[in-house]
């Protein structure tokens, strides 16, 4: 336990340690089983749809929900070990948790909210308040110190909640959908700030979100979970280019197909719906190791990712040109995005195609109309299915 005389909250923690968790959680029909490692200073984004178990994961790490099996360790200390029946209480874990709904104490001023952890650990009132003021100052919100949470805007409350969590000098920082409750403009503003403050935190950080952009911008690594299981883990670039599931592909806005490798020379992939695509594409920053770059064996299960902007749409049959992939389909729907139009085409394979608004008017597209699609083989990225 900390002493009242410990160094102020502004100093970095000397004993920052890696988070290693391998945990199982069962509650009724829902089961969560995950293994994670997060190094000190690293930010892991846990991305997943609602009900995937993101919040359950955070609650388990914070000790608010008991795990049914597994171990959680941070640095040298063991927080949970189901085999040995060991489980630290939440208050002994030194975990900073920024709740989605902030959970600021309504009867305390902002300063006393931030000073709460120091007071709970036995620091004197004056010292706790001084340290709280320092933290507020560092986050640029010292002018809010004497206000009550009820009068704060969403963005201000978010900053205060973060300040309160950081002021408790946590060894693990957990953020539950930190930007979800904010309006679009504030979200943009806070996201930039959050990046800065998270970079200063020396321990491991886990950020839970359903917003891929938030994960890409804030995190060093992304773990995608669906139905309580990890489905993909990698750098933001990796997840964005090579989605492992339909859910991730949708999030990052890619067409995703699965099939088997039919020809190694031309890299033809026979898709599950009977059609084929030639996939000669490379990631610009594809890993250098030969294992990944080497073409797999014929018959290997593959995933094929194709960006909607890389597909050309024609209203008449096209001559064989440079594009290796050609197929036709009918328009199932049109959706106006901010700066372009997304056309859903039913065919083999079905595809989302992005065209400009000008092209939409010029081509006079209608739902039900037959169209021809082409895509260069170099735009089609194929990779072994995980």
């Amino acid at each position, binding site marked *: 336990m900390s002493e009242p005389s410990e160094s102020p909250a502004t100093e970095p923690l000397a004993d920052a340690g890696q988070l290693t968790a391998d945990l199982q959680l069962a509650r009724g029909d829902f089961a969560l089983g995950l293994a994670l490692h997060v190094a000190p200073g690293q930010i892991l984004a846990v991305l997943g749809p609602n009900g995937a178990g993101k919040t359950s994961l955070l609650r388990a790490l914070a000790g608010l929900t008991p795990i049914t099996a597994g171990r959680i360790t941070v640095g040298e200390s063991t927080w949970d070990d189901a085999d040995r029946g060991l489980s630290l209480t939440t208050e002994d874990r030194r975990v900073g948790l920024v709740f989605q709904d902030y959970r600021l104490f309504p*009867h305390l001023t902002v300063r006393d909210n931030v000073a709460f952890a120091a007071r709970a650990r036995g620091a004197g009132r004056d010292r706790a308040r001084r340290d709280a003021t320092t933290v507020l100052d560092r986050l640029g919100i010292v002018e809010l110190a004497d206000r009550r949470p009820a009068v704060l805007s969403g963005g201000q409350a978010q900053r205060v909640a973060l300040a309160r969590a950081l002021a408790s000098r946590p060894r693990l920082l957990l953020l539950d959908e930190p930007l979800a409750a904010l309006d679009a403009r504030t979200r943009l503003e806070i996201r930039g700030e959050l990046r800065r403050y998270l970079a200063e935190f020396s321990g491991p950080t886990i950020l839970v979100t359903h917003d891929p952009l938030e994960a890409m911008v804030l995190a060093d690594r992304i773990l995608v979970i669906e139905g309580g299981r990890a489905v993909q883990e990698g750098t933001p670039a990796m997840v964005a280019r090579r989605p492992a599931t339909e859910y991730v592909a949708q999030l990052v806005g890619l067409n995703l197909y699965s099939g088997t490798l039919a020809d190694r020379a031309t890299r033809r992939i026979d898709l599950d719906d009977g059609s084929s695509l030639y996939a000669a594409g490379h990631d610009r920053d594809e890993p250098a190791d030969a294992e990944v770059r080497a073409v797999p064996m014929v018959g290997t299960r593959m995933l094929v990712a194709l960006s909607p902007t890389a597909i050309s749409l024609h209203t008449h049959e096209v001559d064989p040109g440079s594009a290796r992939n050609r197929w036709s389909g009918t328009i199932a729907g049109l959706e106006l995005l901010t700066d372009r139009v997304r056309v859903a085409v039913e065919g083999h394979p079905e595809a989302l195609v992005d065209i400009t608004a000008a092209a939409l008017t010029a081509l006079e597209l209608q739902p039900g109309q037959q169209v021809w699609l082409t895509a260069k083989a170099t735009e089609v990225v194929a990779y072994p299915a995980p």
Partner: protein
Amino acid sequence: MVWRAPWHDLPRILAETQAVEALRLSLICATGATVISVLLGVPLAWVLARSSARGIPLLRAVVTLPLVLPPVVGGVALLLAFGRLGIVGRWLEAWTGATLPFTTLGVVVAETFVAMPFLVVTVEGALRSADQGLEEAAATLGSRPFATFRRVTLPLVMPSVAAGGVLGWARALGEFGATITFAGNLPGVTQTMPLAVYRAFETDPPAAVALSLVLLAVSVTVLVLLRDRWLRPGTTW
């Protein structure tokens, strides 16, 4: 009642009936009962609101029993428990030499018995609707359960504790049945205002009206004062 009051006789009546003594006793006992109710009732309400132990529904029934029980029956029950030959009373006398029935302390016990359920019910409701997420937040900040109760939960339900306390105080001030059964009607020792009114009514009805008027005035005054301070909706501490 105000109309029928014997205004010109008031000073004489109040002096003869020992009204001042009875009023003093009433206020002291009601306040004492309220203090005990808060000290015992708030932890009890917390247990009722938060514990999931098997005996909780039974405990809740026992705690709220005085709300539905005629106070006289309550008084009989207290007499059986705390009387000289009662289960608790016998033990109490053997250990301390003190007995509760027919003493001022007995009045406080009787009033606590009928007043505490008001406080417990009010505070339990507030604890149930209090945001338990805040208690979780306090735990992540290193606060132990008792400290969390003191620093977070209690301040948030304080308006309800005050409201329940006032309700209990008002109920204790008007207490009659349990008091007269358990503590008797001894002027200066256990004769509170309601008992004095009852005694006066048997012999001198106009005096009873006068005494009632005094009790009414005091109750209204206190409730109005408290209302302004603590019972206004939306008060936070």
